């Protein structure tokens, strides 16, 4: 799906890889962090093309989640700019960004536990006048278990089901780009594969995905393109398979 051909080997792709043409999402030289002066990211560059599946991997504390949150306006912006669909979204608040077609699924606490499954999905479409029935049907088709448990309180669902519900809620607005923060975190090992399969299907239906994953090998195997971040900076960028095969990346970041 990637139409931006990475320039040469790993060395060259340490650069941003951003081409002159339009990308769906372009993150350029972004410095970001939390509070007044806790800076996590230094000059991070990323892009996601329409319908592309991109993952961010890297060691703990590399700033993976922060990089994704900076796209959704959840960090303190300290420099650079972010353009989505031709519009500068640098410094916008999440409630504004959600109107533009970006959905975000946090890593944990990502459902409203005392609301029913259906109410959780309705909240996903809060910014619309009416709950879009076709979107609701589409979510139920994708995750039939959610329709079965429609009336059940979300807090009583299993971890895997809650993760589905969280994704379903983000899909209610049919976003062009879905941000997923560690979707496999906390899932039983046998459910992890299933979760990645579902993400593949969402992507196949045309939604671009930017995902942060601890489970780096599996994520790189599945995605179109990957970024390796370390200490808040870009390290490598290449297509997923090539990163997996790269000796340096394997040694440093994938445990050999």
């Amino acid at each position, binding site marked *: 799906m990637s139409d931006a051909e990475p320039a040469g080997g790993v060395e060259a792709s340490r650069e941003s890889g951003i081409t002159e043409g339009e990308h769906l999402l372009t993150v350029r030289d972004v410095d970001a962090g939390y509070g007044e002066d806790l800076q996590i990211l230094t000059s991070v560059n990323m892009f996601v093309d329409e319908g592309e599946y991109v993952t961010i991997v890297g060691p703990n504390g590399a700033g993976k989640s922060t990089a994704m949150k900076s796209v959704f306006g959840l960090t303190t912006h300290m420099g650079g700019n972010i353009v989505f669909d031709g519009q500068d979204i640098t410094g916008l608040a999440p409630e504004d960004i959600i109107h533009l077609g970006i959905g975000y699924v946090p890593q944990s606490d990502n459902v409203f536990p005392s609301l029913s499954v259906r109410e959780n999905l309705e*909240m996903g479409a809060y910014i619309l006048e009416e709950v879009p029935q076709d979107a609701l049907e589409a979510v139920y088709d994708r995750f039939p278990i959610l329709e079965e448990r429609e009336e059940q309180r979300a807090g009583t669902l299993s971890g895997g089901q809650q993760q589905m519900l969280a994704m379903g809620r983000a899909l209610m607005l049919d976003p062009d780009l879905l941000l997923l923060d560690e979707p496999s975190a906390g899932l039983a090992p046998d459910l992890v594969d299933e979760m990645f399969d579902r993400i593949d299907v969402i992507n196949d239906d045309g939604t671009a995905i930017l995902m942060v994953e601890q489970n780096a090998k599996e994520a790189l195997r599945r995605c179109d393109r990957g970024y390796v971040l370390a200490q808040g900076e870009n390290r490598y960028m290449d297509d997923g398979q090539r990163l997996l095969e790269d000796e340096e990346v394997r040694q440093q970041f994938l445990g050999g």
Partner: protein
Amino acid sequence: MGVRDTVNRGRIVAIERPDVFLVWVLGAALVVDLLWGLATGGIAFSTLASNVWDGIMRGLVIGLAGIGLSMTYSILNFANFAHGDYITAGAFAGWSVTYLITGFGEYDLGALVLVGPKSNVTGTIIGIGVVSTPLAVLAGLLVAGAATIALALLVDRYVYRPLRDEGGITLLITSIGVAFALRYLIAFVFDSSTRTTAGTTGNPAVRLNFVDGTVRVSSHDVTLVVVSVGLMLGVHYLLQRTKLGKAMRAMADNEDLARVTGIPTERVVRSTWIIGGGLTGFAGFMLVLWKETIRFNDGWLLLLLIFAAVIMGGIGSIYGAIAGGLIIGIVASTSVIWVPSGLTEATAFLVMILVLLFRPEGIFSGRSTA
């Protein structure tokens, strides 16, 4: 078999949780005593029924006032100690209008507006009552709600909102300050005397036959039941069926998630103050209509009972607030069978402590928050 199982289970409880066992024994002893009293005529059935009815009335006022407190607690995450004085403020605003409409042209305007601080203009003298002056009562009720909404929004805008990121303790202590300021402002403007707002004149009552006597049910009792049950059902509908209500529950669950979902959180906060404030004002007006007197510290004195009800019900749950209110009310009113009337409120608090020993999170914790 069944009996032996029960006995066995009882023995296990007695050994493992002696405190729980003791409470059950005490409870059983009270029930036996009550039944014995009823059987031998020591306690009249009608007296018990009257006490329970009085307790339900008291419970409805506490429950209604508790909903507003519980709502603001669950959505804004702080215990608003000024809540009691919002009740008083609503009551004075509403009764001022009720006095004005009823006595206009016949009595001194200033005395009417200030809810008759001098004893010659009391509710009984000017003839206030839900049957004699229904429109004045209705207008007062609505104004009480509206005035309390305005007050809640004003205080939130200029006091609480600038402090919203400072954490619960700062807000709590600030709200105690707001409580004192408000209370003594009310005392300064309206005077600190106790006055009678209504009596039997406009408030006919029926005596219902009950086994060995009668139970008195006044038209103000009936009004309280209708208004409070109606409002409670309305709140239930709002929270369960409307988009705003669901957003309020979502925000009570997880404010950060609500924000990234696109729920306009500041607007939900404002709506919470509007709904909570309105209910609080209604509760203040109904409190005074039911107990037939008004004073500058009515709400403050009620606040401890409201907190007890809300905590017992599971703080944050509106159903808990209602259930807790009814339990507190009924316990306080029926405890006069065993304890001197000066100790009724102490008994209510004792029951609250016992309930919390059994269910530290409250009766309705984790259910249908907001």
